[in-house]
């Protein structure tokens, strides 16, 4: 049996009387892209928050690389190899593209408290940062101020920062959000190559991208997992069609 890299086990979460996660369990296997889909308000982002450490579940466990990380915060989970990208880009907008990528490399180095030497000239960090920028196609924008990037380029930079962490797993919250058709196709092609480095759990509304990329899809409705399966299984699932995908007729 293949050991999952990331495992969510019977997660429950309430906000007051509203239950936003109901006994949610899912796995992320090595080399796979696992898409989490569902209508707005289904609790996808809340689940991502619980996986990334921004929210603590009321019950259930999150296992990363065989270790229980349920009680750990975002910082500790990141150190254990969870790389996250955000639905709305969270970047240091006043800094350059290279500085943002360097920040990731610095986090991965585990020693951000050095007050001597230049961050930019530290060759080890810079090499990692430049390689990540090169991989996402932002090498020629390295010295551009991040605020001047287009929306699509900011999404690319988010992924570059995640790459610098050399993670065990990627967790991506709507990576295609706001991208045009062409941008979405380009990113789809890139994410397809990324799975070789680490598996990806991604929340996504762009069904073309989901069907092109996902090895498995989990459908979340009202905080509850409706189904998990391959693209074909999910497409043919009547309950999923009624709740989210709709029918062709």
């Amino acid at each position, binding site marked *: 049996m293949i050991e999952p890299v990331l495992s969510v086990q019977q997660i429950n979460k309430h906000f007051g009387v509203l239950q936003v996660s109901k006994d949610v369990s899912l796995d992320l296997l090595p080399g796979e892209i696992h898409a989490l889909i569902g209508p707005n308000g289904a609790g996808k982002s809340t689940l991502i928050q619980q996986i*990334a450490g921004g929210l603590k579940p009321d019950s259930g466990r999150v296992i990363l690389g065989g270790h229980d990380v349920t009680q750990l*915060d*975002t*910082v*500790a989970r*990141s*150190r254990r190899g969870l*790389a*996250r990208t*955000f639905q709305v880009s*969270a*970047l*240091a*907008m*006043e*800094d*350059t593209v*290279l*500085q*943002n990528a*360097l*920040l*990731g490399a*610095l*986090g*991965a180095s*585990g*020693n*951000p*408290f*050095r*007050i*001597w*030497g*230049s*961050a*930019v000239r*530290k060759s080890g*960090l810079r090499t990692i940062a430049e390689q990540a920028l090169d991989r996402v196609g932002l090498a020629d924008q390295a*010295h551009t*101020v*991040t605020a001047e990037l287009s929306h699509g380029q900011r999404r690319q930079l988010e992924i570059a*920062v995640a790459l*610098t*962490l050399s993670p065990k797993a990627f967790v991506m919250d709507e990576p295609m959000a706001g991208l045009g058709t062409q941008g979405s196709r380009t990113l789809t092609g890139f994410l397809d190559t990324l799975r070789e480095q680490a598996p990806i759990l991604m929340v996504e509304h762009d069904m073309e991208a989901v069907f092109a990329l996902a090895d498995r899809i989990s459908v979340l409705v009202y905080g509850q997992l409706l189904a998990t399966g391959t693209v074909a299984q999910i497409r043919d699932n009547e309950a999923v069609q009624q709740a989210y995908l709709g029918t062709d007729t």
Partner: protein
Amino acid sequence: MNREALLNILLLCVLLAVPVWAHTAEEPFIITLVTRALILSIAGVGLNMALGQGGLVSLGHAMFFGLGGYSMGILASHAQTYTPLFEWPILLEGSNSMPVIWITAIVVSGFAALITGALSLRTSGVYFIMITLAFGQMFYYFAVSWPAYGGDDGLSIYVRNEFPGLNTLDPIQFFAIVFVLLIIVLALAAAVARSPFGLALNAARQSQARVEAVGISPFRLRLFVYVLSGMVTALAGALFADLNRFVSPSMFSWQTSGEIMVFVILGGVARLCGPVVGATVFIALEHFLGGLSDYWHIYLGILLLVIVLFARGGLVGLVAGKQQAHD
């Protein structure tokens, strides 16, 4: 070399040249005036490390300024009266050595910053401002009610403390000490800004979620800079007390915290020499306008209003232009 770097060098040359001229012209008052501006600059540079790089709007930095002052006052008063600070568990004597006093001020303030920072940095925004203000006022009232060291009246030190090889009572020699310390502090601030730590701290100011997502704790970054900032401000406090040969609870007051913040905002938040410009302009206005009217703060208020509304980069930003991200 960019425009701001040139401006900084020019500014430091002027601040060096004026006292040298005053020395040859036998105008010790001018030397003391510039020395005062430089000491307040050091306090401003200290606050700017936390405020400019870390985005920490601390309204309690007078706490560190006062701790620096009282470190000097307490050590020097015991040295003058030949009485130990305490005899148990170890015998601890006073000191009139400036380096010993500076190290004491830095260590005491660093410890105070660690404790107060660990508590106050769990809040943010207006709550952080209020809790730092509260800590500052706590020290203020403690100093007021501490009769052993002068209470409300403060504590006079009759002879300026000593520095090996120099006559600290000579205004130009004391100025030289302060000038060198200012250069060291500026070098430290510049090194921090360009270091890996500075990169992470600056990013934490812009996006806490981003820094957390790469495995760096924003709380630890901020605590580190808060302690560093408190230590630098304490050094200024020790020098200020030595300049005046007097310490009083007013060094702890919220007005002092406000003045240090005015230096930073006036000169330019996150600009290396912003606090130096701010403190120098403040002292110049106090000297020139203070001679004309007791209400000179009105003019300072108008200037501050103009700067905040029309020159967000402060006076440095006005002259050197907007700060650009660069690597």
